[in-house]
């Protein structure tokens, strides 16, 4: 799952996330804890994203099975999801989380920041987005060169730098974003 090869990455995720009963378990859990099928779908998807990030960042220590780890993330995510939708009903109770889950909590984006980042990402072109994804997945510049057809790893590196600069420009053009994130820049 931590593989740099995007085909292996996708295949491992596919094998794990579509395994028998995993999605059904999340849907059932959400339904029995006051959510709808739609909520369950959302929680399953978000749990998959958080799970992927935890694995990539080496935060899964192997003390439980991957399935147990995933379900803990889903449980915790349902609590935060519900709290966001209905702050009173979604009160966080000790039975909703355990040590494993609380470590996940620190990793997710806050909702507002996420919305603002979505806006920023949408302003970067698709090719740059693809390149930056490979970069974030720890692909080497040689691999990025091959995947995106650059003439050399150096060209791929230059382009990665430009793409990040573009992202930076988008941030700087959105002072409200930086303000929301409590980041002061020289432009202000």
């Amino acid at each position: 799952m931590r593989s740099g090869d995007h085909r292996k990455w996708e295949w491992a995720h596919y094998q794990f996330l579509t395994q028998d009963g995993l999605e059904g378990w999340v849907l059932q859990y959400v339904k029995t804890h006051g959510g709808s099928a739609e909520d369950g779908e959302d929680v399953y998807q978000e749990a998959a994203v958080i799970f992927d990030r935890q694995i990539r960042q080496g935060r899964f220590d192997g003390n439980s099975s991957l399935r147990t780890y995933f379900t803990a993330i889903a449980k915790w995510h349902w609590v935060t999801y519900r709290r966001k939708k209905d702050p009173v009903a979604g009160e966080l109770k000790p039975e909703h989380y355990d040590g494993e889950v609380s470590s996940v909590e620190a990793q997710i984006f806050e909702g507002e920041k996420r919305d603002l980042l979505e806006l920023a990402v949408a302003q970067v072109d698709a090719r740059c987005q693809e390149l930056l994804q490979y970069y974030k997945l720890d692909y080497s510049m040689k691999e990025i060169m091959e995947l995106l057809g650059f003439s050399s790893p150096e060209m791929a590196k230059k382009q990665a730098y430009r793409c990040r600069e573009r992202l930076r420009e988008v941030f700087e053009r959105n002072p409200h974003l930086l303000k929301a994130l409590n980041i002061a820049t020289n432009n202000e």
Partner: protein
Amino acid sequence: MSKRLQKDKIEAYLTGQLPPAEVLAFEQDMAGDEAFATEVEMQRLEHDAMELMLEKRLKSRMATWKDNPPPNPFDEPTAPVPTPSKQYSWKKWLPLLGFAILAFSGLYYFLRPTDSATPPAPTEAPVVSPPVQPPPNVPIATDEEKKTTDEPEAQTPTKPEKPPVQQESAYIALANSNYDVADFSSGLKGAGDEKSVFDLAAEAFDAKQYAKTITLLAKKEAGNESQVRYLRGHALFNLKKYGQAANEFKAVADNEFAPDFLSAQWYLALSYLAQGPSTRAQFLKLADELADAKNQHPRQADAAKLLERYRGLKK
């Protein structure tokens, strides 16, 4: 420090690659230099944005999986480096030899009687490719169970396999009454598309041609190993070869990445059950695990009911 060097250092800090000895100094610099701290936060924001891109990518891929599963990169043949000058000439004939073997196998398959009407012919047994270990406690089984459960092949190498007995043991009956499996071929390619060996095997299984299923699955190109073993387990179960079925299901149940690993645990329990007292301990251990609510197994309720009925049998 040059801008590029500073950027690289921040990158190392954000990705956890900065040596621990330098982290403290780095954080002290951040605390004492607002511009530097802002630069770190901006770069952190870039990473957050890249994370968001990956999230979107994963979600969009997940949305396509139902109709368009990703290809298995591990199934791709590893192309050998061509070294014609060093190759022996006889190697050129290997593909032809392989083709001839396949052709003979095909001819044999079409000339032999179908399995849906008759019990499986004894010569089919070697087609099951993985080595089969005999159930550990076979000698303990009663005579009746020995007739109904599959026996170690070494014990009957030359004799035809006995036809299924009319009266199944209570264990087999209980296992069979809990055995339910969805069609394997539903959702596979349509008639116009070229079907894979696995598709054909799944169709044979759904048509209750279990020996044919096994024959097809023995082919090298049958597909993903865990899928093959899972389907073969079902075919063997239906052929009442419960010990061999258990071996197949166990291989899948032990592989957490296999798509059917949870289902395989359930069918493994049924395979143990069907073998009667010889695998009683394995059955009880596994069924207890599945029935334990804490494990959240999708078959938890079924397993609890099964155990209850099993204990009723024992009384």
